């Protein structure tokens, strides 16, 4: 019966979002908060069920594939749902503080965020190539209006660019799905894996289209221009959700497709090297850009572009410890990046601006938010004792075992570059200033809820450094050839 949890974990958040939409409640609306709690409970129940019973399957509408759609919850999906639940719940707490008083915007945030939560769970559970397209669209179309919540002129043009490129990416992906359906006659990930012909033009073109589409959605280097304005311009809880979860969904799909249907084409040597090279380029270029940004939220946004590159480093390695390293990096980055954005949001909320050069001497008034920023950036830099360090260790170990020196160099240089842009911010915080940081308007101290949610997420990113064993046993072995 526990496999009924799968559809529930999709529809509870969706229906909660609908209820909030109908009830029209504000920031503290009981409907929204109980919706968040219920979704959190369902997600945790699902993760525990997967933990105890292994992978769960649920054929929707009673029709087995290839006719119907199958929901599939394995270790990878469970971990991503756990990440969504934990980061989502804490960001929701922050949103209660951030949107207090602005009831109309708060209602839109709650509706869209709960719908987004449901679609993220749907995406992680989906084991059907076309259903992945629909959930990918759902996730994007929930994310873009969230960016619009800020209502400023930049956020309008940012969301327009985001929409255009997101549609472009999804349609490329759909082109690939069309070709694969033509060849295999089915959309179920596992069946495709079995029926896909080994080589030939159609398989190559289909894989290229799907991978290109997902790279656009994941804002990997050549296609990353839409991410910083969108994540930088959005309100803090939104940019936290976008960077930690939405962009991660596209990269997760690359891993899911590698593990399932597209194992053969994606593990072709030159394809794997290309993806690895793109990842390395993302790390280097993203970090360099992050060092040159005048605004704090743009620094953190470019850091997302860089950190996503690490997960792509899995493909040239394609070995069990690299799989665990890439997935664990996804988790650690999700938690740490959410903490960074919330902390940056608190500073913006307090000072009215987030120009890095003018954050001088903000140590005093924003001590806790600055502390959260510092603790979370330890994980971003991959320094011990954080989750980011464990992921870096796993990636380095598998790279060294296979003698891929350019990956070793990229991971190490990536950590140093991350230290570059983090300590650039910290330097201003510690700089001595007589009158404290410059302020655009009367300083409005951040609500306690906002500060403590950022701090909890930051501490969580450190705790991830110690809880690697249970999480990685939940992830299980690298799924070769099966859906």
């Amino acid at each position, binding site marked *: 019966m526990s496999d009924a949890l799968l559809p529930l974990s999709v529809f509870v958040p969706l229906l909660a979002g609908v209820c909030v939409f109908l009830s029209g409640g504000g920031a503290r609306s009981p409907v929204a908060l109980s919706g968040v709690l219920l979704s959190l409970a369902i997600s945790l129940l699902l993760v525990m069920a997967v933990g105890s019973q292994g992978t769960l399957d649920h054929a929707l509408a009673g029709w087995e594939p290839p006719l119907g759609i199958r929901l599939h919850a394995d270790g990878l999906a469970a971990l991503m749902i756990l990440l969504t639940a934990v980061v989502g719940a804490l960001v929701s707490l922050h949103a209660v503080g951030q949107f207090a008083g602005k009831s109309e915007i708060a209602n839109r945030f709650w509706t869209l965020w709960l719908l987004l939560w449901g679609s993220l769970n749907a995406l992680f559970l989906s084991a059907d190539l076309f259903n992945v397209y629909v959930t990918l669209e759902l996730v994007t179309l929930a994310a873009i209006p969230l960016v619009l919540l800020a209502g400023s002129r930049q956020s309008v043009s940012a969301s327009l660019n985001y929409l255009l490129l997101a549609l472009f990416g999804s349609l490329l992906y759909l082109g690939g799905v069309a070709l694969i359906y033509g060849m295999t006659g089915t959309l179920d990930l596992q069946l495709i894996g079995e029926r896909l012909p080994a080589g030939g033009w159609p398989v190559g073109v289909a894989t290229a289209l799907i991978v290109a589409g997902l790279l656009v959605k994941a804002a990997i280097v050549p296609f990353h221009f839409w991410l910083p304005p969108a994540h930088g311009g959005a309100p803090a809880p939104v940019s936290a959700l976008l960077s930690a979860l939405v962009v991660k969904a596209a990269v997760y799909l690359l891993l899911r497709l590698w593990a399932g249907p597209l194992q053969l084409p994606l593990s072709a040597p030159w394809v794997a090297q290309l993806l690895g090279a793109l990842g390395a380029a993302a790390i280097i270029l993203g970090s360099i850009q992050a060092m040159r940004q005048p605004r704090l939220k743009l620094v953190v946004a470019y850091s997302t572009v860089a950190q996503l590159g690490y997960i792509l480093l899995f493909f040239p390695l394609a070995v069990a410890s690299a799989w665990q390293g890439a997935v664990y990096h996804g988790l650690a980055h999700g938690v740490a990046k959410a903490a960074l954005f919330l902390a940056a949001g608190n500073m913006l909320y307090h000072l009215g601006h987030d120009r890095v050069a003018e954050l001088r001497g903000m140590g005093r008034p924003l001590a806790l938010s600055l502390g959260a920023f510092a603790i979370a950036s330890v994980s971003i830099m991959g320094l011990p004792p954080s989750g980011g360090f464990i992921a870096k260790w796993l990636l380095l170990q598998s790279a060294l075992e296979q003698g891929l020196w350019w990956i070793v160099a990229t991971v190490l240089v990536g950590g140093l570059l991350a230290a570059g842009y983090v300590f650039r911010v910290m*330097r201003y915080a510690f700089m001595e200033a007589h009158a404290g940081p410059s302020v655009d308007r009367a300083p409005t101290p951040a609500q306690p809820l906002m500060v403590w949610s950022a701090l909890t997420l930051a501490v969580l990113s450190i705790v991830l450094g110690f809880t690697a064993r249970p999480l990685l046993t939940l992830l299980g072995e690298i799924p070769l050839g099966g859906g």
Partner: protein
Amino acid sequence: MLTGAGIYQALPLWVLLSSLLAALLVFLAGEDRNRLRITVNLAAAVLKLLLVGVMGYGVLQGHTFLVTMPILPGLDLVLHADALTMLFTTLSALLWLVTTIYAIAYLERRPNRARFFGFFSLCVASTMGIATAGNLFTFFIFYELLTLATWPLVVHNGWPKAMAVGRMYLRYTLGGGVVLLLGIVWLAALGQSGDFVAGGTLEHLAPEHRTALIAIFLLLIGGLGVKAALVPLHGWLPSAMVAPAPVSALLHAVAVVKAGAFGVVRVVYDVFGTSLVADLQMNTVLALLASFTIIYGSVRAIAQTDLKRRLAYSTVSQVSYITLGVALGSPLATIGGLVHLVHQGLMKITLFFCAGNYAENSGIHSIDELNGIGRRMPWTTAMFTIGAFGMMGAPPLAGFVSKWYLGMGALQAGAPWVLLVLLGSTVLNAIYFLPLLHRAWFRESGEKAIATAGEPGPGLLVPTLLTGISALGVGILAGFPLSPLSWVTFIVGQEYAP
């Protein structure tokens, strides 16, 4: 699983937590609750000293202290206490108590004290972690934590110059961290857990992984060399003197620098093992590097006009005595190297306390302002003199004991040229210390010197006296059972019978 024995066995963890929780309390207490902060700091320092004492006694009786926490399959967080650990923990715990008193007095009316003392006890926590680490993985975690905890102290004043130094400090230490990480992960990739086992665990790898082992050794030494201030990597130490006096006294003279040296000792003895290091000819490379650093450090010290920079360069050269002792590998050389770890700590902290007193009371920063300070601040200058003579290795002081054993060890290891290095460094020490003493005692203080400035308050003076007297005692009473020398001989006897 925490039974009675378990709690006792987990003593290293409680030592670590005592200062971690103190750091947390200090951070949360906030800026204005001064009394609470002082009591928390002092209580933590005293508690730690007691715990270390109990642990030391336990190690003497041969009890085992071990705490393991599995992180990844084949990778555990291990805290244990062996004889070598006790050497470093005792030194750190003692000096931390003294420096806390000094720092409380020094930072009387300064801003941001909560931040300072929070990171200060975070530093001591990471030093304890380094000392009690049971394998390379755990060692690396606390090694990097030390970097993160010391950076805020280096830039504590917030002046633009301090920021520039902070950036340089990061470049060195984070760079070193990356190199060290590469070495450790490479070792793990070869299937080695990197546990600290007396005599090393890599013997069997030698035949087919020879070049890899050499590369790993160089990487590890390179990473540790940054903090152990080996020549090409020492640049950060002199400029880090811009930090407040307690920071430069404890961290840059003792904790951070010793962490590097301690790491080198662990790598050579407990990971590679002296025989493998000799087989890879790495011991001669290390010895040459250490000797060059000793000479280079002393030469640069002579040219410095600023007092703290001169002492910093002297630290660069003195720490390499430890590396030299370890590189030679013979039992007597090991004794000389390890005992110098304690002696140099005591002597150098005394010198820095005196420098701090001079700067604080009489505004003295450069050498030529020292004229006639002996009359105005007799006690501080007396301690300075003890420290200076100890550094020069004048018998019967501590410096002489370590140099004596190093010399004997060099002969035992068949490397007579080391004697020349020791002799040369003694001469150079004299060249850069004696003029200071001459100015202090025999020169008339210039008219602009502040006549009224007498000895600093008890908060600054008592710690200086304590460390000065203990530096003296450690030298003279070297033969006694509980002296550092006897403890080191016990270590060498027990763990490294060559």
